């Protein structure tokens, strides 16, 4: 009851401040009137009575104040008053306010948006049941390091150890695939997994079930589990999808369940897996890949197991060592092959909680992750120090106001509170602007058509962190100048600002902030240049062939239900029609394009009778006309012609790089190699062509040219998918014409891609471009912020010295001298800042190079950045920063020099 009264009274005090004030006034007035009446009754005149009553009463305002205090709302009132004054003040200084809100908004918003993307790819971890009992198991390479690949047969051996493992599962790396649904063919990410997959992880399907062991047998009808994100986004969360049949890579597949919402895939790097298929579906979906081969790198399996309750990690390791020895004894042949992906006899067991992606990938992964964090952090640091500078400058400019307030009797406490509230208001507004920008930035990012889908949501932890940081900055740097300002010498400041001695000290907070901002800008640009470098390298690696005037059309006949011989006939018909389009100079059928080829494992015939080593090379199945169409020059031998038929000996054209690297000579005509999967696939080299840029199948972006070979599609198991054609004119109309021809052949054939090669090239660069754009934008943002800070500081310094400048000009100083005298001080600071920044950048690069030492393991979309030292680039960065900085300082300097001496002298 009492609590209720208290609560009501307090709420009323807070929310009805105005009515409370009138109440108080009326109450006291009544008291005075009654007192007056009483005194009148004792015989005094009205005037005397009123006077007497007032005298008895004492100070009305004091009583009011005391009454307010008694309510305990005085603090609140002062807060409201300060906030109102602060808002009025900020609105009046709208230039300063806009700048500050913009700085904060950009820093918080851009950072949050960009970090949310990066976070979605790099940092998110899913919660699994009892994760401490999960282990990752890898086969080792010959050097004893865990491999990316573990073979299916090795998995089966591992799964036999039921006394050690309660459950064992294998899941493949994410693979690109296409599916047909509702009449449209779309890209998807598929994984191949065992029936034990979900149980081992300790998860339950969101709907339906996981596939079982009978469905895992070779030859069983194909089934799939749909990923939760794919279900909600692409199938509108329709529960009736379970039980329906959709076509994946042309094959009918029955959906049996929906994966749990929390589980996005075996390798959680932002690629949401759309479909899980049984491991045995690999050859059915990707025709030419037999499972069970230990050297298969197309479906590299990651094996995880759940330890039995009583089993320790050490015991599991011991058990796997026994297995490794047994395997080495039983299959000595399999461990004899040489090469990058050769399997050694060892097996590694690691607790799953200790691994992010893969034991060998985690090092470089952490380098990238920390680089991203550093860059994002640097932008925030620049923004905060910028805000600090602005507040500092403003605080100094307000010294006079502060002294007036102090002289009027304001306590220091009141003043500090007042200034503090003002800067907190400012950072709050900046935080709100940041939220809006973050939300808007995310919408913009979601609009970008990434070739892979990333689960994009604003990360509220990051947003909260950025806002809290900006508030702390606001508080700290609002307070520092406030404290400094309230220490002012009243007399000097009040007398005349112009007579104040100029501060000649070098080590002031302001100077330190300028140096800091310049240094961090250089570091930031240096950091982002690593990503720009990678993007430039990715572009360079793809433009070695002529794309202008070339159009491409991709289809997949399996979706239209053709048998293989029929399909080949249809393609021949399509090629004939396209070649007949007016203006077409050459056309070719192929499977795979230079910008998105896959690596395959091959074995080289070394010629001395020894078993060759297993190596990786990019492969394209092509046809006569391919090299003409893309203008790839032939160096030795010949390209494909009529002699190369399905029943003639297998032949290949290889790239200069492959010839040099794998055969030791550019002229490798007559040498042989074979697919690592098929011992009977010996292929003879008939020609060597100039290197072409390829997709970065091994992600080594700074080593753009991969070994590559071309086979004839007639001799390939897989069907062609693509027609390319070169025209003498513009490629864009050719795209439409090619689509018309496709429809003329069979109206039901799906169009997967129909683009000019130039467009295809651009879209294949989307990821490095997007990354470069994001980080380039961050670097630019940092530089802009830093120059705003410089500008503010110099403009302020000029304003303070305007009287001095006026005197100088009146005495005959030329404007250049004035500008120079202003610029000199700033240039020194910029020089120091740039120097520190360069040193830090070099240190950062050294750390990154050290961190990515064992980087080259070729995992999916994880690119490894090994910055190379480029002194020219570093100097350019330093120069840009210095020039921008000096320019920012120059603008107010020139304005000062142009000032009319009379105006400058009068200037207060």
């Amino acid at each position, binding site marked *: 009851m*009492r609590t209720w009264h208290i609560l009501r009274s307090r709420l009323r005090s807070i929310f009805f401040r105005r009515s409370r004030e009138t109440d108080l006034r*009326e109450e006291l007035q009544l008291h005075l009137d*009654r007192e007056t009446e009483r005194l009148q009754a004792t015989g005094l005149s009205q005037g005397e009575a009123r006077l007497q009553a007032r005298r008895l009463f004492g100070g009305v305002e004091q009583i009011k104040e005391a009454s307010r205090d008694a*309510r305990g709302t005085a603090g609140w009132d002062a807060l409201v008053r300060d906030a109102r004054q602060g808002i009025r003040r900020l609105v009046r200084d709208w230039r300063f306010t806009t700048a500050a809100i913009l700085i904060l908004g950009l820093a918080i918003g851009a950072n949050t948006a960009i970090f949310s993307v990066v976070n979605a790819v790099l940092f998110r971890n899913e919660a699994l049941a009892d994760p401490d009992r999960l282990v990752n198991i890898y086969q080792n390479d010959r050097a004893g390091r865990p491999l990316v690949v573990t073979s299916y047969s090795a998995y089966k051996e591992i799964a036999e150890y039921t006394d050690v493992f309660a459950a064992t599962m294998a899941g493949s790396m994410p693979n690109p695939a296409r599916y047909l649904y509702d009449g449209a063919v779309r890209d998807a990410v598929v994984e191949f997994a065992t029936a034990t997959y979900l149980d081992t992880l300790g998860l339950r399907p969101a709907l339906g079930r996981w596939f079982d062991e009978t469905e895992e047998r070779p030859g069983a009808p194909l089934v799939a589990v749909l990923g939760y994100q794919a279900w909600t986004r692409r199938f509108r969360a329709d529960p009736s999808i379970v039980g329906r049949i959709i076509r994946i890579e042309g094959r009918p597949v029955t959906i049996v369940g929906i994966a749990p919402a929390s589980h996005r895939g075996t390798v959680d790097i932002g690629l949401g897996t759309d479909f899980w298929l049984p491991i045995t579906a690999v050859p059915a979906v990707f025709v030419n890949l037999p499972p069970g081969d230990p050297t298969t790198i197309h479906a590299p399996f990651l094996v995880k197991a759940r330890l039995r309750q009583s089993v320790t990690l050490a015991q599991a390791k011991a058990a796997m060592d026994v297995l490794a020895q047994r395997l080495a004894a039983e299959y000595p042949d399999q461990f004899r092959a040489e090469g990058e992906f050769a399997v050694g006899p060892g097996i590694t067991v690691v607790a799953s909680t200790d691994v992010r992606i893969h034991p060998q990938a985690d090092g470089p992964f952490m380098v990238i992750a920390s680089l991203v964090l550093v860059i994002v952090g640097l932008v925030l640091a620049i923004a905060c120090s910028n805000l600090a500078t602005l507040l500092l400058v403003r605080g100094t400019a307000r010294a006079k106001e502060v002294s007036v307030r102090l002289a009027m009797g304001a306590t220091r406490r009141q003043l500090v509170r007042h200034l503090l509230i003002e800067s907190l208001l400012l950072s709050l507004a900046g935080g709100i602007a940041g939220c809006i920008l973050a939300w808007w930035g995310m919408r913009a990012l979601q609009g970008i058509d990434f070739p892979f889908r990333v689960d994009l949501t604003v990360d509220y932890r990051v947003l909260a962190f950025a806002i809290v940081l900006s508030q702390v900055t606001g508080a700290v740097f609002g307070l520092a100048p406030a404290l400094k300002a309230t220490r002012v010498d009243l007399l000097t400041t009040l007398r005349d600002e112009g007579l104040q001695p100029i501060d000649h000290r070098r080590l002031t907070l302001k100077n330190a902030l300028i140096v800091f901002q310049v240094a961090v800008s250089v570091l930031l640009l240096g950091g982002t240049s690593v990503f720009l470098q990678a993007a430039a390298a990715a572009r360079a690696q793809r433009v070695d062939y002529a794309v202008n005037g070339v159009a491409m059309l991709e289809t997949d006949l399996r979706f239209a239900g053709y048998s293989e011989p029929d399909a080949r006939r249809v393609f021949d018909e399509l090629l004939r029609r396209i070649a007949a389009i007016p203006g077409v100079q050459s056309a070719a059928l192929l499977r795979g394009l230079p910008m998105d080829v896959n690596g395959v494992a091959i074995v080289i015939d070394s010629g001395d009778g020894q078993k060759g080593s297993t190596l990786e090379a990019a492969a394209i199945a092509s046809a006569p006309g391919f090299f003409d169409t893309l203008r790839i020059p032939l160096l030795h031998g010949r390209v494909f012609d009529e002699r190369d038929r399905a029943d003639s000996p297998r032949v290949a054209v290889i790239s200069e790089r492959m010839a040099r690297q794998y055969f030791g000579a550019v002229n490798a005509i007559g040498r042989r190699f074979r697919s690592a999967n098929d011992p009977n696939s010996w292929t003879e080299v008939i020609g060597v062509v100039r290197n072409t840029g390829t997709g970065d199948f091994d992600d080594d972006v700074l080593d753009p040219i991969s070994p590559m070979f071309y086979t004839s599609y007639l001799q390939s198991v897989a069907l062609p998918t693509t027609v390319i054609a070169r025209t003498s004119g513009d490629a864009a109309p050719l795209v439409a014409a090619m689509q018309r021809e496709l429809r003329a052949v069979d109206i039901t054939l799906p169009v997967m891609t129909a683009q000019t090669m130039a467009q295809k090239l651009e879209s294949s660069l989307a990821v490095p471009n997007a990354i470069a754009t994001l980080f380039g934008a961050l670097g630019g943002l940092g530089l802009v912020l830093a120059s705003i800070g410089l500008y503010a500081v110099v403009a302020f310094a000029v304003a303070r010295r305007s009287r001095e400048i006026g005197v100088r000009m009146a005495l005959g100083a030329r404007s250049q001298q004035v500008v120079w005298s202003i610029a000199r001080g700033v240039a020194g600071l910029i020089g120091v800042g740039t120097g520190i920044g360069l040193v830090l950048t070099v240190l950062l690069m050294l750390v990154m190079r050290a961190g990515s030492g064992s980087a080259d393991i070729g995992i999916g979309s994880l690119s490894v950045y090994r910055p190379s030292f480029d002194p020219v680039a570093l100097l350019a960065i330093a120069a840009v920063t210095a020039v921008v900085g000096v320019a920012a300082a120059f603008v107010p300097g020139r304005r000062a020099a142009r000032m009319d001496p009379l105006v400058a002298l009068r200037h207060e």
Partner: protein
Amino acid sequence: MSDQTDVLQGTLDLLILRTIALAPMHGWAIAQRIQQISDDLLRVQQGSLYPALHRLEHQGWITAEWGASENNRRARFYALTKAGRKQVEAEVAKWERLSAGVNLVLQRT
């Protein structure tokens, strides 16, 4: 006037609570009543009366309602809350112990 005593700090709350225990009153009337009942011995400083009233309201011992005064003007009438009634008893008991103690000290020294 010299024989009037300003109300002691701390006893004002007790006096106010006790006075309005009989009937709700407005501020001036409370001051007058205290003065009358104490045969003009005690004088309530307005400077402390209103802050005290607001404090008591804030603490939840009394509530305030607007009503018509004896000469029909709007006035803020203070009344005890239930908790206030208990508080009066506690304050009275405390005061009695205090004054008894003070009296004893004065008599025995």
